[in-house]
C-alpha cells in the first residue's frame, strides 16, 4: 500500500463527521444523556409516578452507610478477581498450548471454547442452575459417581459459597474472549523471534515467559480492561442463578441498583446506586490503567 493511495481514500472532514454522526448520536442518547438524567434523579426521592421532590445528597449519604451496597461491591471485586486470575490464566495457558506443534485439532478446540461466548446470559444462567441443582444437578451427580460425596456443597444456598458458584459460569462462558485476543496477538509475533530463541536453547516454559508474555502484554491489557468493565456490570447471570440470594450474599452492584429501582420502587435511591456503580467501575479501570503503565515502564 503506497502512501498516496492511503491519502486518496481518506474522506473529507465533512464526510467523516457525517459518517460518525449516527454512531455518536446513538452513543450520546443511550449512554451520556441517561448518565446525567440518572444523576438528576439521584438527587430526588422519586418513588413512582410523576411526583418527585429534590432532597439534595441525602441518597448519597445513605449510600455511604449502606452495607448491602458495599457487600455488592465486594462481590463484584471477587468476580473481577476470579476472572482476571483464573480466566486470564487459563486463556494464557491455552494460548501457549495452541502455539505448540504437538497440539491437534486447533480449529475444533477454538470453536468449542468460543461457543459459549455467543450464548445468551439467561440461557447460561439456567444451564448452570441445573448443573448446581441439589437433587438433580449434574455437578452433584458427577461427584457422587466418583465417590466424592464429601465435596458436595449447597452450591447456591450456602452464603459463604454462593459468590464463587456464580463466578464459575462467568469464567466458563467468557473464556473465549481473552483467548481470541491472546491468539491474535500471538499470531502477530514473527516466527523469526521464536526460531532465534529456540536456537538459543529456550524451552516451552521459558518461551512462554520471556517471549510470548512480554510481546502480547499490550493485548493483555486490553483483555483485562474489557474483563473489569464487563464484570463490574454483570447482571443477568446472577439474576437468573440466585436473584442475589440467599439474602444478599450474591448481590452485585447492577442487580442491587435494578432491584432497588424496580422491585422496591425507590427510583431516586436506585439512581444514586447506579451513579455509585459508575464511579466505582470507572475508578477501578483508571487505577488499573495507572498500574499497567507503571508495569510497562519498568
Amino acid at each position, binding site marked *: 500500500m503506497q502512501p498516496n493511495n492511503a491519502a486518496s481514500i481518506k474522506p473529507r472532514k465533512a464526510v467523516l463527521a457525517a459518517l460518525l454522526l449516527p454512531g455518536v448520536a446513538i452513543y450520546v442518547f443511550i449512554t451520556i444523556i441517561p448518565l446525567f438524567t440518572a444523576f438528576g434523579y439521584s438527587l430526588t426521592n422519586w418513588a413512582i*409516578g410523576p411526583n418527585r421532590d429534590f432532597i439534595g445528597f441525602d441518597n448519597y449519604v445513605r449510600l455511604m452507610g449502606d452495607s448491602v451496597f458495599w457487600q455488592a461491591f465486594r462481590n463484584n471485586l471477587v468476580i473481577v478477581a476470579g476472572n482476571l486470575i483464573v480466566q486470564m490464566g487459563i486463556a494464557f495457558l491455552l494460548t501457549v498450548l495452541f502455539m505448540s506443534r504437538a497440539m491437534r485439532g486447533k480449529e475444533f478446540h477454538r470453536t468449542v471454547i468460543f461457543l459459549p461466548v455467543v450464548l445468551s446470559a439467561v440461557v447460561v444462567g439456567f444451564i448452570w442452575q441445573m448443573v*448446581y441443582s441439589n437433587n438433580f444437578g449434574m455437578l452433584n451427580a458427577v461427584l457422587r459417581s466418583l465417590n466424592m460425596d464429601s465435596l458436595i456443597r449447597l452450591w447456591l444456598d450456602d452464603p459463604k459459597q454462593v459468590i464463587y458458584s456464580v463466578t464459575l459460569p462467568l469464567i466458563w462462558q467468557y473464556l473465549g474472549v481473552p483467548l481470541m485476543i491472546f491468539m491474535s496477538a500471538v499470531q502477530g509475533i514473527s516466527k523469526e523471534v521464536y526460531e532465534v530463541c529456540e536456537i538459543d536453547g529456550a524451552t516451552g516454559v521459558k518461551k512462554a515467559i520471556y517471549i510470548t508474555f512480554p510481546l502480547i502484554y499490550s493485548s493483555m491489557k486490553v483483555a483485562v480492561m474489557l474483563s473489569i468493565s464487563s464484570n463490574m456490570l454483570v447482571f443477568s447471570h446472577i439474576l437468573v442463578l440466585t436473584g442475589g440470594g*440467599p439474602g444478599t450474599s450474591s448481590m452485585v452492584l447492577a442487580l442491587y441498583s435494578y432491584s432497588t429501582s424496580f422491585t422496591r420502587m425507590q427510583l431516586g435511591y436506585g439512581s444514586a446506586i447506579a451513579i455509585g456503580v459508575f464511579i466505582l467501575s470507572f475508578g477501578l479501570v483508571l487505577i488499573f490503567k495507572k498500574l499497567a503503565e507503571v508495569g510497562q515502564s519498568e
Partner: protein
Amino acid sequence: MKNKFLRIISLCLCAMLATAAFAACQSQSSDTAAPAQPAAPAADAPAADVPQSAGDAMTLNVMTLWARDNSENIPTALRARIAQFQEENPHVTVVEEGIGDQTAYYTRLTTLAAGNDLPDVFVSRGSELSMFAQAGVVAPLDDILNSRPAWRDGFVDGAFGDLTSNGSIYAIPYSMLSTHVIYYNSSLLSEAGFDSFPQTWPEFMDMIAKLNANGVTPIALGNREQWVANSCVLSTLGDRFTGSDWFRSIISGDGAQWTDPEFVSALAALQEMSNAGAFNSDMNSIDNDQQKTLFYNGSAAMFMEGSWAIGAVVDDAPADILAATKVAVLPAVNGGKGNPRSMSGGSGSGLAVGIGALQDDAKMAVIAEFLEFVLGEGYSMEIAAKGEPTAFSVTGYDKSNVSELAALYAEMASSLAFSPIYDSFLNPAVNGVINEGLQELLINVITPQDLAERIQAESNRN
C-alpha cells in the same frame, strides 16, 4: 480495487444504519399511536374483526400474571371470558400480555407505573395498588361500580378490602384466595404416626422430627423468588403470634412495631422450624414450581402455597399422591394472640385500570363493560364449578366437576377466617427487606431480633 470495496462497505453500513433508525422511529410512533387509531390490528387478532368504521374501534391492552400455558383454574376461566368478550365485541381488539414469573411481572408493572404508562387493564396486588394510587397512576373504579349496582352488590363481604386505598376502590377482585394452605401427603404422615394433622405446635414440631427420621423432607419450600416464605408462610405464622389487630396497627402506623416481642417470636418460630430440618436444604435456590415437584415425587410430605395451587396439584400430581393429598393450616401456637382458625387470605389481587384510560370516555365505557363481563356472574359460575372460592357470590352452579381436593379445601375454608396477607398491604420496600431477610433467617445468617430491627428501620424510612 480496495478503494472501491471500502466505499461499497461504507455505503452498505450507512444504508443499514439509516434503515434501522427509520424503523426505530416508525415503530415508536406507531406504538404510541396504537391506542388512539388502531389502523393496524394486533398480530393475534383476526383482521376481519376490525370494522371499517374507525369511529368506535379500539385496542384494549390487558396485562396478566399468568403464563400462556398456565393450567390453573382462574387464568383458564378468565382467558375464556376474555375470548368471549372479544367475540361479542368485534370492534374492540383485546391484546393480552401474560408474564408468568411473579417477580418479573411486578417489576414490569412498576416500571410501567414509573413512566405513567400502565396498560388499560392489569392484574395487581393491593400493596402495589396503594402506591400507584398515591402516585396517581391508576384510575379509581368507584364510578364504574356505582353505575352498576347489581354487579357491585353481588361481591362478597370484604372482597374489596385489599384493593381499597384512601376510601376508593382501585381494582375488581377475581377470586377470594388464601395464600396459606398446607397441602400434605396423608400416607406419609400416617407412616410417621400421624393419622390426622397436628392441632398444637409441639405436636407439629414432633411430626417434623418424625418425618425427618423417616427420611422424608417434611415441608418442600421453594423460596428463590423470595415471596413464598413471606406470603405463604409468615403471613399466617405471624398472625398466629400477633393477631390481626397488630398488623392493622402496623399498616395504619398507630403504635405497633416490627420489633414487638410477638412478631419476633413468630420469626423465631420460623427459624426454629428451619433448624429442626422442616425444609429442604436448597429452599433458597428452587422456586415454587419446584417445591411442588418435590411433593409430587413423594420426597416431601407437605408444601405451603396458596389456594391457587389446587388446580396445579389436581392436574400435575401422580394419581396416588393426589389421592393422599389433604389440606390443613398451621396449628395454634403457645401463647399466640391470633385466631388459630384463620389463614392469610382475601381478594389479594384484582384487575385494575391505568389512569391513561380515564382521559377517554369511550374507552372507559368499554373498560367498564369489559370488567363486568369478564368478572361478572358468568366467570364466577365457571370458577365456582371448579371449586375456586369466588369474590362474586353465585349459587346453583354445577358441583359435579369440583375436584375432591377443591371440595376438601372449600370445606376447610368455610370454617376459617381470613387474616391479612402481608405482602398485599406492605410497601414494596418493606416487603423487599422482609423477603430478603427471610432467606437469611431460614439459613441462620440473621437472628430474629436483628431481622425485626432491620424491617423496622426500613419501615421508619418510608
